[in-house]
């Protein structure tokens, strides 16, 4: 049994393909259900975000499961299987679990350290769980993955520093004001970054947003979008005195706000600090403003410098996060291996016990002449033979549990005693022996070596 993941992400597929493969909740669940119903997998979780669509499967035959998954995804996207194969990736065994952990820790995200992925993964898992698509292995594995995601966020500073211009601007303003309660922001010009910054500020609780532009209609339009108030451009200096944060992004060729008007405005506001953000090129704000007492001026270069520094710190933290993933991987692997051994021993004992009972029943007529006591002795004798024979394999199996090679033993025992041909174990519904046989030989040796992260893209 193996964990397998197949899917596409921002690293392998175009936005167009990702759009076509974006699954809503219902589609995700249906896809997982189909894979279970047709017997390709025993457990399934489908994850779909704007940057990736992935299927996590727990299956006996990893190759067949992967093929089925790709086929379903291709049908969903309305593309050829061969086309999807080119942009998709698959991992199995350790590689798949490592991938799951890295995705949940946002190490595989477009913006490393972003916070949403944990919630998205949680939702995907919960949905699959409620839909009955997960069982022992995935219930534990996905909960473990969510814990890894949480651990990475609390033990590393991976998501601490913002890495976009607009959020860096907000962070700088926060460093001055602490929090935005009764603060006012003035947006000069209707640029996109200005709007984005205003939205961020709003999310951080800023009260009043003033928007001004040479053409009042554009200001009104932007004010409506960000939930602010448009003010006439002619009265810029008057509003400057009211603003704690000024964001300027006009396309004017010269300076829009000069040092003198800032000095006057600061006097009018009793020198309460003002944070100026100039994201226009050419610049809107006279660099001399930065010399005025209690005026802080940051232009696009300064912000980019902050962002570059933050990115660098994030990279360092990502390396620490990778180490956490490795640790957790080792833990979960031990568990997965022991999980396989215990039910196999139980099934083996059950199967041999069945043979013994069957044989005793078959002999029923021939030993009917025996007394009850003698019959009990026969029963004891056969029982003790069975136990003696099974003793060593049981001990040896328990010994290898938790070792890298334990899959080999499990598969060998299951094949030699044909354990999956008859009764199914609780976690592993039966596969036809014809499918099982090649998997046990070739599949096991390929997939169960430590750290196999075979990318079949």
């Amino acid at each position, binding site marked *: 049994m193996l964990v397998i993941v197949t899917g596409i992400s921002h690293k392998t597929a175009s936005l167009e393909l990702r759009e076509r493969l974006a699954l809503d909740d219902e589609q995700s669940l249906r896809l997982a259900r189909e894979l279970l119903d047709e017997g390709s997998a025993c457990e399934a979780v489908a994850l779909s975000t704007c940057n990736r669509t992935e299927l996590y499967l727990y299956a006996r035959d990893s190759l067949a499961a992967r093929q089925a998954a790709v086929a379903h995804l291709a049908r969903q996207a309305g593309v050829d299987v061969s086309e999807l194969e080119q942009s998709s990736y698959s991992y199995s065994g350790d590689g798949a679990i490592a991938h799951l952990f890295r995705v949940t820790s946002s190490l595989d995200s477009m913006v490393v350290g972003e916070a949403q992925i944990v919630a998205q993964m949680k939702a995907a898992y919960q949905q699959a769980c409620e839909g009955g698509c997960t069982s022992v292995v995935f219930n534990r594995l996905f909960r473990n993955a969510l814990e890894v995601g949480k651990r990475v966020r609390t033990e590393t500073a991976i998501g601490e*520093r913002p890495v976009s211009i607009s959020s860096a601007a907000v962070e*700088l303003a926060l*460093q*001055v*004001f602490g*929090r935005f309660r009764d603060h006012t922001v003035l947006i000069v010009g209707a640029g996109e970054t200005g709007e984005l910054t205003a939205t961020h500020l709003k999310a951080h609780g800023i009260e009043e947003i003033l928007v001004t532009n040479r053409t009042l209609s554009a200001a009104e339009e932007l004010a409506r979008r960000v939930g602010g108030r448009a003010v006439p451009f002619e009265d810029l200096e008057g509003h400057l005195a009211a603003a704690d944060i000024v964001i300027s992004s006009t396309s004017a060729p010269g300076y829009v706000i000069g040092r003198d008007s800032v000095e006057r405005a600061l006097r009018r506001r009793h*020198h309460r*600090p003002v944070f100026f953000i100039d994201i226009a090129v050419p610049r809107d704000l006279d660099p001399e403003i*930065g010399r005025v007492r209690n005026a802080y001026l940051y232009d696009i270069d300064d912000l980019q410098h*902050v962002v570059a520094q933050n990115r660098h710190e994030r990279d360092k933290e990502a390396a620490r996060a990778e180490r956490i993933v490795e640790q957790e991987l080792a833990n979960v692997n031990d568990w997965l291996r022991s999980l396989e051994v215990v039910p196999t021993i139980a099934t083996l004992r059950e199967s041999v016990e069945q043979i013994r009972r069957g044989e005793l029943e078959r002999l029923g007529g021939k030993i009917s002449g025996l007394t009850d006591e003698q019959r009990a002795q026969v029963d004891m004798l056969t029982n003790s033979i069975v136990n003696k024979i099974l003793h060593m394999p049981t001990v040896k199996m328990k010994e290898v549990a938790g070792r890298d090679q334990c899959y080999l033993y499990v598969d060998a025992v299951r094949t030699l005693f044909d354990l999956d041909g008859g009764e199914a174990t609780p976690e592993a519904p039966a596969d036809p022996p014809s499918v099982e046989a090649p998997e046990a030989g070739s599949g096991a040796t390929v997939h169960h070596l430590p750290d196999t992260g075979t990318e079949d893209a």
Partner: protein
Amino acid sequence: MDQTSTICLWLAYVLYAAAFAVFLVAFFTQRPGLNRLGLVVAAVALVFQTAALIARGVSAGHFPFVGAYESLILVSWAIALVWHVLESFTRIKAVGLYVMPVVLVLLTLALVEYQAPRALAPALKSDVVILHVAVMLVAIGCLYVSGGAALIYLVEEALLRRRRPGGVLGRLPSLATLDRLIYHATLLGLPFLTMGMAAGVIRAETFSVPRWWIDPMVLLSAAAWAVYVVLLAGRVRGGWDGRRISWLAVTGLVLLLVIRFVAVPYLSGFHTYGG
């Protein structure tokens, strides 16, 4: 009993050092959660220091404020206590980075100047003196914290102004928070300073200490008191900005340090910590 006190003090010392190390790591790695660990370690250290003070008081048979050893332990204890109280109300990060080294330096001075406990000088056997010392301790604790916050403010402000705030962002408290901390710590400390000075004057008058007002410590304390009054008045009435407030708080801190480390050992007439 004095031995118990010394052991507790050393434990507190080691724990403060550990807390400082944790705060440093927290600052440079920005590991969330480490700050909390540092606070817990510092709190345990404070418990040991309190135990050390109590044991010392029991063994000496009086409130332990006699001599440099006891007074330094008391002052550092007051600073740590005030900081913990302010911290639990305001949840301001990074101030521990300033408070811990101050406490450690004071404790180091205390530990190298160990003095065996001795009886109170007759002049100090007075409730007014005890009140004077206790109230002054609270004042000093508050005003050291205020001065420390002001130092952080000035450094941070300069970095933000130079547009290279990389090392500061998200690690230090915001300027507005520091401004509030300076204000609140001073607001809390000034009344105690006033009370302590009043108790001192009452004591000097009742025992008719000759020309007590030209004692260097008295003069410097009066100057520090005036600085803090100006600070509060400017902040409340004049709407002064954080930078001006910070410079005043740092001035006050320097005066307090001069009093403790220059005036007391080298200049003072009668303020000899009972020595």
